[in-house]
């Protein structure tokens, strides 16, 4: 089980959280001018990296805040957590 350092509450067990998948996917403005393919890129296409993954987590059973995590998808090591709106830190495994 992961131990996830909530930027507000500190380290808490994974069972308190919900994973929201890839982070930093901005909802396109003027979606009406996008092609079906461009729209599906936002809707469905994901980086799904083997290595450092910038992802969103929600402290659902705790403070209910969403935040970002930089986590290695191979080792599950968590390199950084940072609040919504903050820029992703560059991490080197």
């Amino acid at each position, binding site marked *: *089980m*992961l*131990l996830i350092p909530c930027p507000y509450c500190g380290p808490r*067990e994974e069972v308190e959280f*919900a994973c*929201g998948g890839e982070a930093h996917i*901005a*909802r396109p403005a003027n*979606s*009406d001018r*996008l092609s*079906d393919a461009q*729209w599906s890129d936002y*809707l469905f296409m994901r980086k799904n990296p083997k290595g450092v993954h910038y992802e*969103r987590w*929600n402290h*659902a059973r705790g403070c*209910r*805040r*969403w935040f970002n995590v930089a986590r290695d998808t191979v*080792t*599950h090591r*968590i390199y950084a957590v940072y609040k*919504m*709106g903050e820029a992703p830190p560059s991490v080197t495994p």
Partner: protein
Amino acid sequence: MTTQPYRLARGGRIDRAKRLRFSFNDRAYEGYRGDTLASALLANGVVLVGRGFKYHRPRGIMTAGSEEPNAIVQLGVGDRTEPNIRATQVELYDGLSAASINCWPSVEFDLGAVNGMMSRLFPAGFYYKTFMWPPSFWMKYEYFIRRMAGLGKAPDAPDPDRYDKTFAHCDVLVVGAGPAGLAAALAAGRAGARVILADEQAEPGGSLLASGETINGQPAAEWIAAALAELASMPDARVLARTTAFSYGDHNYVQMVERVADHLPPASSPGPRQRLWRVRAGQVVLAAGAIERPLVFADNDRPGIMLASAAATYVRRYAAAPGRRVLVFANNDGAYRDALALLDAGIGISAIVDPRPDPGAAIVAEIRRRGIEVLAGHVVAGTKGHGRVESAQVMKLDGDKVAGAARSIGCDAIAMSGGWNPTVHLFSQSGGKLRFDAARATFLPGAPVQAIRVAGAANGATSLQDCLREGHAAGAASAADAGAAGKAGDAPQAEPATPDEPAMPIWIVPSVKPVGEGGKHFIDHQNDVTAADLQLAVREGYSSVEHLKRYTTMGMGTDQGKTSNVNALALLAVTLGHEVGAVGTTTFRPPYTPVTVGAFAGHDQGDLLDPVRKTPLHGWHEIMGAPFENVGQWRRAWYYPKPGEDMHAAVGREAKAVRTGVGIVDASTLGKIDIQGPDAVELLNWVYTNAWNKLEIGRCRYGLMLGEDGMVMDDGVTTRLGENHYLMTTTTGNAARVLGWLENWLQCEWPHMRVYCTSVTEQWATVALNGPLARRLLAELTTDIELDPAKFPFLSFREGRVAAIPARIYRISFTGELSYEINVAPSHAVALWQALMAAGEKYAIVPYGTETMHVLRAEKGYIIVGQETDGTVTPHDLGMDWIVSKAKKDFIGKRSLARADTSRPDRKHLMGLLAENPSEVLPEGGQVVAEVKDRPPMAMIGHVTSSYFSPNAGRSIAMALIKNGRNRMGETVHVPAGERVIRATVTEPKFFDPEGKRLDG
């Protein structure tokens, strides 16, 4: 009652004053407190305890610990029976009963042994090569194969015992309470760290429990006692015996199982039988010791053949003699010390066979001095014996062959040692890689990737002094890393020992005939995998470690190959001509030893498996004898049968009453979200398909919520309570999901919006009055609310008192009738309900449940999200374009509605279906076909989403999603139901009061 012929006159940690009666294979025996089942059996001279898995050869006790591959028994009887228990780990208690498994009719005479005679037909993987003809016969072959396999039996009744689960947190978790573990725990504890020390055995001490050595000048046993006393005096040190750390997960999350009551007679203790410990450890010290390696020689599986350290353990710790004339076969000095232990206990040593040409350590000389013959440069090339080893064929070792004449040496036990394998399982699970150490001829932990240190024998240490030193250092360093500032004190001191001479790796001991053609060289004793099987697998190309393991099933038994894996890896390397270690290792998968399923469930079983959510009116529904329906975690009253009524009758009565008089329903489970802030309306405009700017204070509006994929996700009514204040309702099942959805967008996408959302689902109990008489009833109980439709119109809300209870009343309707949804404090819900029932008596008020609610809404063609929709349905499909704003530039899901497929005009549309025979109710989930064929396949054009008999329409009604449905209006379609086909007509999905005239009563 036999005596204990092999019990030594003195010594051991058993309590001879506590005699315990037990039975094995229906024969009565006696042992002592402190015995394991294995030691008690040995003391009673019982060496034949089981049969091999495949060839059903006689098997005895091979080890004294959790690595035991052979002595697997069925423990206990009835609902408390347990299959596949290792006799070496079962603590004896009075009345214990156990039996051999995998043999019939008896362990002495086992018909399965016929397999042994035909063994040449059953090489590794034989079943992949046959049982294919005739094609249809596999299931028949399989039936017999399944019966042959399977070891023990499952209980045939539910488990009467309780299990417990707990989380635990510590700075330093020490796994293993041998010398290294105790030293580590002491060091960490003294430094002030929160320590948990866990050991799988009945008492801490590990190898020291069978050791004659001294520490800090004290005999080992006394030092253990002192160490435990000191740990007990620490406020934050916890020592757990009978506790196996079995899995090592991410971020130092270690699972352990404590056998709380397994050492006691069944049902003799009130507490749980086992406890699952889920430990989040800052640092871990792995001091799990090492497991001795068997030697792979011909017929190395006869009862009486055991590990040398096990023989010494039985003698020293349990005062049980493994035999009277023991032959020792070993490639290292340690086994000589074990031999000495046997000699000191008065047990005869018939010889020591050592493949090393010239073992010269002091211990060897001492053995010789005691008059024991040491056959250097020799090996055991085979064994003989029936039900127990009777002699060993000893031959001279000449390179990788044996030479000269075989000398038969009589013995009733063989103590073997091929060296040691550090117990690195948890280290490997933690992600650490293993490295092969040629000097020690074994795998050692490499660089750790988590906060773990390995100490003592688990780290390859051989001397007691090294174990103590490494343990102390690891404990001290772990405490420091965990932030404990105190002093760790000095490392315990053992008396200095002269270092051992190197062992001589010998991975397969030659015999006269080539491997596989004479006796059997067993590697995995439990799965009956031999050296010949491994060589065959390699010949056939299954030469990667995992292929080898899977093809031969090597290491896949209940012992998970603790005694066999390294021998197999080495033999694989040798066979391929590689360096040992070059072929890698198989992965060590959790659990370290098997763990009872019940322990994982803990208290979360039966009625506590999942929370049952109850409304404030639950008790009232129960009293009325209403059956309940599971809706998510909620229990909702389904219908209220009168005496003699079935569901159909009750629902018919309830549904009629609502449309002719007044009905009352508990709608408290609806999700309710309080939304406040200047941008609340903007939020609503984004998450709903319709526009919200013009909603006046005090008015309500229905909304449809889409996923970003354009598919309907939820629906509900939202009310404007104040300038910047709204109350959103959601479907029962989606309450949490919708709040999460709003927060997701607010926090991640639109942080600029000034909106706060708070769940108030349980702040309000909801009681809905429905029916033409609803107003008259309500009027009797409220004085401060004008109920005149002109003053209190449909889709509006008022605050006031009902039966003197503060209430919010919403004029929204899920039935199409005049309806008031009365919201009050849950603690007042029963009072309100009873007041309404009392006052409603003269109007023949009828309580109704979810089934009637569904019928009534279906009569009106109202959808239920999750029933009419399934994640593939758009508002257009539902015929609800009217609620999709064309004006709004964007909202969640808008763009997806414009995709090529989503905007097709001929998608599946929600339609009504009327069966030709009005009394025939279409099956819900029935598939709709345009043209019937005499047999499948038939092209399906949709399915029935809802279907009921409508008491108010006086006929059956149904809703269905039908391909291009709106262009099939009036068409006849067919719904195959089992053997019959029901004809039905496509209509509008409205079956009662289509003009909606009844809303105002």
